[in-house]
């Protein structure tokens, strides 16, 4: 394997040392996303300690991390877990390990932005539920959200949707270029 894609290299890039972590769990204890995660930030560090890169790259944790940095703020050893998670995401993408629902969300989200210049939550949820094959997910909260006006029904596109589309197109061109250069 290319040495640029080893666990050690990813940790070095994130400036994270697995031996700094003594598994106290203060990170996972306060993580706002912990309930949906499989490993949680402490589990990510534990996997790193035993060299289990595969389980990190295949975990839901790396995709659910919101990057709020509460874990880093509270960590007694200042271990920057989100920075490492960020590197793990790149590596997972490179290896083509992308969870179907994350992929669907990303695509739906981008299509949404292309169309309106900003995210329309109702359509985002609807398309996500359809393509992720989870048609009933969160359906019960819909009436409440609509009646309290927490979610708009009508899309509200921004002015200059074309500009946003141009930005996305440019980013995609750059991304393609980078990929070609790397290969």
């Amino acid at each position, binding site marked *: 394997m290319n040495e640029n894609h080893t666990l050690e290299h990813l940790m070095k890039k994130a400036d994270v040392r697995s031996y700094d972590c*003594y*598994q*106290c*769990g*203060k*990170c*996972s*204890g*306060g*993580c706002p996303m*912990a*309930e949906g995660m499989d*490993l*949680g930030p*402490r*589990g990510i560090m534990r996997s790193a300690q035993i060299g289990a890169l595969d389980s990190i790259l295949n975990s839901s944790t790396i995709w659910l991390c919101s990057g709020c940095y*509460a874990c880093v703020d*509270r*960590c*007694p*050893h*200042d271990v920057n877990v989100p920075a490492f998670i960020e590197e793990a995401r790149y590596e997972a993408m490179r290896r083509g390990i992308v969870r179907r629902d994350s992929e669907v969300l990303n695509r739906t989200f981008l299509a949404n932005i292309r169309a309106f210049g900003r995210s329309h939550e109702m359509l985002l949820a609807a398309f996500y539920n359809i393509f992720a094959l989870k048609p009933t997910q969160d359906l019960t909260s819909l009436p409440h959200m609509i009646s309290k006006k927490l979610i708009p029904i009508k899309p509200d596109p921004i002015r200059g949707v074309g500009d946003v589309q141009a930005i996305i197109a440019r980013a995609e061109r750059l991304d393609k270029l980078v990929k070609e250069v790397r290969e």
Partner: protein
Amino acid sequence: MSKVGVFVCHCGTNIAAAVDVVRACEAAKSMPGVVHAAEYKYMCSEPGQQMILDAIKEYGLKRIVIASCSPRMHETTFRKMLKKSGVNEYLIEIANIREQVAWVHDDKEKATEKAIDLIRMAVAKVCRDEPLKSQMIPITKRALVIGGGIAGIQAALDIADAGHEVTLVEREPSIGGRMVMLDKTFPTLDCSACISTPKMVDVSAHPNIRLLAYSEVAKVEGYIGNFTVTIRQKARYVNHDICTGCGACSEKCPAKVPSAFNKGLSKRPAIYTLFPQAVPAKPVIDKDSCIKLKSGKCGVCEKICPLGCINYEDEDMEFTEDFGAIVTATGYQTADWAQMYDEYGAGRFPDVIDGLTFERLVNASGPTEGHIVRPSDGTEPKTISIIKCVGSRDPKKGRAYCSRACCMYAAKHARQIFGKIEGVRVFIFYIDVRTPGKGYEEFYDKTREDGAIYVRGRVSRIYKEGDTLICQAEDSLLGKQVRVKSDLVILETAMEPAEGSASVAGMLGAAVDGDGWLTEAHPKLRPVETQVGGVFLAGVCQGPKDIPDTVSQASAAAAKVIGLLNKNEMESSPMIASVEADKCSGCSACEAICPYKAITMGEQPGREAGGNSKKVMRPIAVVNAGLCQGCGACTVACRTGAIDLLGYRNRQILEEVDALWV
């Protein structure tokens, strides 16, 4: 040329396996000044030493080189041997061919060459060695103990029992320290006050102990055996010679301030004793809260005192005393968690308290008479969470170390809670449970049996929901987040050096480590001594420890003090700095660099610089033989080369270096 004898040791096979000892010995024979060389299996053994003594007689040897192990190992052995032979014991050099040759090299040929070089250097130096004589310094047979906690109390009692006079200085109005604040002690759950107050009374009644409470050490001068210490007796405003401690003044005093002893859970008057069993049991006036001293109005205590003890004109008083030895027992304080832990509420929630506050809460002589209640509303908590390692094991908050006592302290708190509240639930959040002590693991077992629920995970945050506090953490053994609704949260906070311990260390010249703990001379083999001769350590000032360890260490420090004070005088090392008066320019660079405060500026007659050459007194560096440790820093700082280290004069060292290039 001097008659030098060289003796090369095999050290069994330790040296002989890596160095050709016989060849090295032969080579030594042709070195300048050498009249005799021999090798032997164990030079340090009885027959080995006899062999050297015989050779000294037979060949009339005047100087000796021994090629063997490190001088740290056997230099003293051979010096003692030389003393018997009549040769000055400082006319000896050790060539270290074990640690610096045999143990670090594989190539026998090259190792032998290096050994020969080292021997040649030692021979060159020994020819330049001069006979030195150690001085005898007298010893003042009195000891000073700084700090009146359990460590200071124990050390003072042990030294006094051995027949030496002790002065015990305590800055609070009473001795007792942290231990008397505790309710019970692990692992036996005996009452802390019941076992410590008899010792406090012993201190006040002991004929050999002079107790100076409400006093501080202001200045320390001198050296081992001969310290002169300035002690400041803080103004008490109460004449303790006639006060009987009746307590009438405290009862009537109208001023009320939060009691630090009760961790702010209750108030105390301005004229107060720390606690009912205080020693001395006589009050002092806290000048910062006394209405009379602040505004001139009041004077109630003066009117009420039947014996006329009150004196508002009292002032701080300083006096000096001489001591031969000093024991530092300045102890600890608990870390101010509210300054560090925003995620635990930073002190905004009154029902999040630290362990020492809980001790006052659960103590029968405390503000609630031992009823565990929530400080916020006075109700009895039904669920209590205990959080360990608050401030400890947390490098980001500045303390990487483990405070050692908190694991047991937390278990003890759980047991105390179970004993007082029917049907209570106790959760203990931990990272590791550390119980390395006699009966400690069994205590932990019993705590779980009693019903304490241990949750492995550091609490990430505490927040409030209505009236209850939520401790949010990960149960890391399950890998799941947990939220524990708690009525009361106890934080087992870190120990840190007591405020002012750094300044005491500074006065003594003793070193402190990065966390502020006083540093022992050797972590294993000299645990109660400091690098400063005559200054010893007892208790937590050296590092976190529990009561059993503190008392053991205090007795150990006392044993060292007794050993020192039992001598009438002691030998000082002659290998110290020496000033050549004519060369000294009086610049005082050496005074500034000396880490032991051993150099002062004296005066000697001389002539003024410039044309008129008037006779004047000019400054000159003077070395105190008792304080100088022979480190040599001054010899480097001296710009005129006036200071030399006896035994390591510059020309001796240079001779040694030159010998390498012949």
